[in-house]
């Protein structure tokens, strides 16, 4: 039976070992590091809560990048998840050449952080780039996307959104688990395609929507590639996300202790937000395979 406790434990045992060895030790060590001053060459020096005190009270860069990161996540996560869901929905039918489109839409994600993406993105958003040309067609003045601190955020948000491929693939897979009979019933009930999408599809794949939301949130808070490649955190630190700051502190300023402290603050933030999402998921995520709905 499902309640066979030993068996379940047996299955997670390898995981337990792995977690202990490859995850928990580094985890604890990084936590320990966050209470030290460590410059790689000399042994870490215990400084208590100094790092945390410093970032809380006298590090404007931290405050700035925290704000930037929050803004980025707020914009980028809904955009990517929403777009991925929409496209997955559109691509979830049979028509000639749909394979091609599916692959095409995933491609940007395969490219990942390759130089081509960096070069291209800078091209697209440069003063004379595609976006401004397109805007020009509508009579809109060219925008200094990469130079204007009010717009620069959008370049990396859009890059993040543009690479929606993996979320899309996961949604595509999830869409398969919606029984067709339900669409049929909904058709008979008079639901339009849009209503079917929002009333049948979406509720039934909420477990996966939830997953993508959490994961994309985790990713967004750790987003590094985009700002690193495209804007280098600028202009005026308007895209200086926390991950970039952590990277700088740890591997460029050789302030590993401080970097670790920053990471743990980021961790706490993401964990709190995820915790909140997990709690809220009880009210909107529907698990068809749960033994009982405990609502």
């Amino acid at each position, binding site marked *: 039976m499902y309640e066979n406790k030993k068996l379940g434990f047996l299955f997670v045992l390898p995981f337990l070992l792995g977690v202990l060895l490859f995850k928990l030790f580094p985890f604890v060590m990084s936590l320990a590091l966050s209470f030290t001053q460590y410059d790689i060459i000399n042994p870490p020096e215990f400084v208590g809560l100094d790092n945390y005190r410093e970032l809380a009270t006298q590090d404007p860069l931290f405050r700035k990048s925290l704000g930037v990161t929050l803004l980025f996540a707020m914009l980028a996560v809904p955009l990517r998840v929403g777009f991925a869901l929409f496209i997955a929905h559109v691509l979830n039918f049979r028509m000639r050449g749909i394979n091609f489109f599916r692959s095409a839409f995933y491609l940007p994600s395969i490219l990942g952080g390759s130089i081509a993406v960096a070069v291209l993105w800078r091209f697209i958003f440069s003063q004379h780039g595609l976006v401004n040309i397109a805007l020009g067609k509508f009579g809109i003045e060219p925008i200094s996307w990469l130079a204007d601190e009010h717009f620069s955020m959008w370049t990396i948000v859009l890059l993040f959104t543009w690479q929606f491929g993996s979320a899309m693939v996961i949604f595509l897979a999830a869409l398969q688990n919606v029984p067709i009979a339900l669409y049929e019933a909904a058709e008979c009930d008079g639901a339009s395609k849009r209503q079917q999408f929002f009333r049948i599809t979406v509720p039934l794949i909420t477990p996966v929507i939830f997953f993508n939301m959490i994961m994309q949130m985790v990713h967004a808070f750790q987003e590094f590639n985009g700002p690193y490649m495209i804007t280098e955190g600028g202009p005026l630190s308007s895209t200086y996300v926390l991950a970039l700051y952590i990277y700088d502190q740890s591997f460029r300023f050789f302030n590993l202790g401080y970097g670790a402290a920053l990471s*743990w603050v980021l961790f706490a933030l993401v964990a709190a937000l995820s915790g909140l999402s997990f709690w809220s998921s009880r009210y909107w995520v529907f698990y068809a395979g749960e033994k009982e709905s405990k609502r």
Partner: protein
Amino acid sequence: MSGASELILVRERGRPWLRYLALGAVAIVMLYPLLWLVGASFKSNTEIYTEIGFWPAHFDFGAYAKGWKTSTEYTFATYFLNSFLITIPRIVVTVISCVLVAYAFARFEFWGKKLLFSVMVGTMMLPLIILRLPQYLVFKEVGWLDSYLPLIVPSAFATDTFFVFMLVQFLRGIPRDMEEAAQIDGCNALQLLWHIIVPLLKPAIISVIVFQFIWTMNDFMGPLIYLSTVEKYPVSLALKMSIGATEEVEWASVIAISVLALVPSVTVFFLAQKHFIEGATSSGVKG
């Protein structure tokens, strides 16, 4: 998919060309970088810096030949082979371990499940770079530096928690009817997994494979830190081999190789994508 589902989709009346047009337009935006990349592999440096168009002035496959030979002692054949030597075993152990663990989380009750699950999800929330050093030290202690083990072995312990979490979510969305029937038919837990869960999870498992393939192929930081012997470099590392800081870089050959490096990933995706939409439960019994 059954005839019925096709019907629903076909019935999406209206002009099919309109849909093609819309899809095509978006596809171009998505594909442009690849087009540009391919085009750039035929361009001179100056052209690359100044031209946004992807059509090169002339075609010359010299860049490919040159890129393939690399500036190192080995050709890209070696690096591709290395990439596969890392990727394929890693995929195998990932799928096995993640499916097992996800199965346990989604279908069993055991002591500390909630806590473990939180830990699992939690481990994804610390920025990777901060874990890099401690992890390095672990592998240094076990003497695995400069081998593929640090890149493969952790996956065998389901440490790719992203996949575990994903599979768990999928499983929790799949009704248990079939599993109950199979239990009655005499399945033990493992048989249940193999005969029922795996087929039902096929789309999700395929995406695990595809992701792990592409991500491992693209992974730069892991190999960078754990591998020091050039002969063992995977493609992702070898790609950046010839980009120094102050030297002139022949972008055409760098890009040519980037294009080649994409081929396996694109191929794998293309082959796999039809399985994303071949769920087993999509049908069930109809009336």
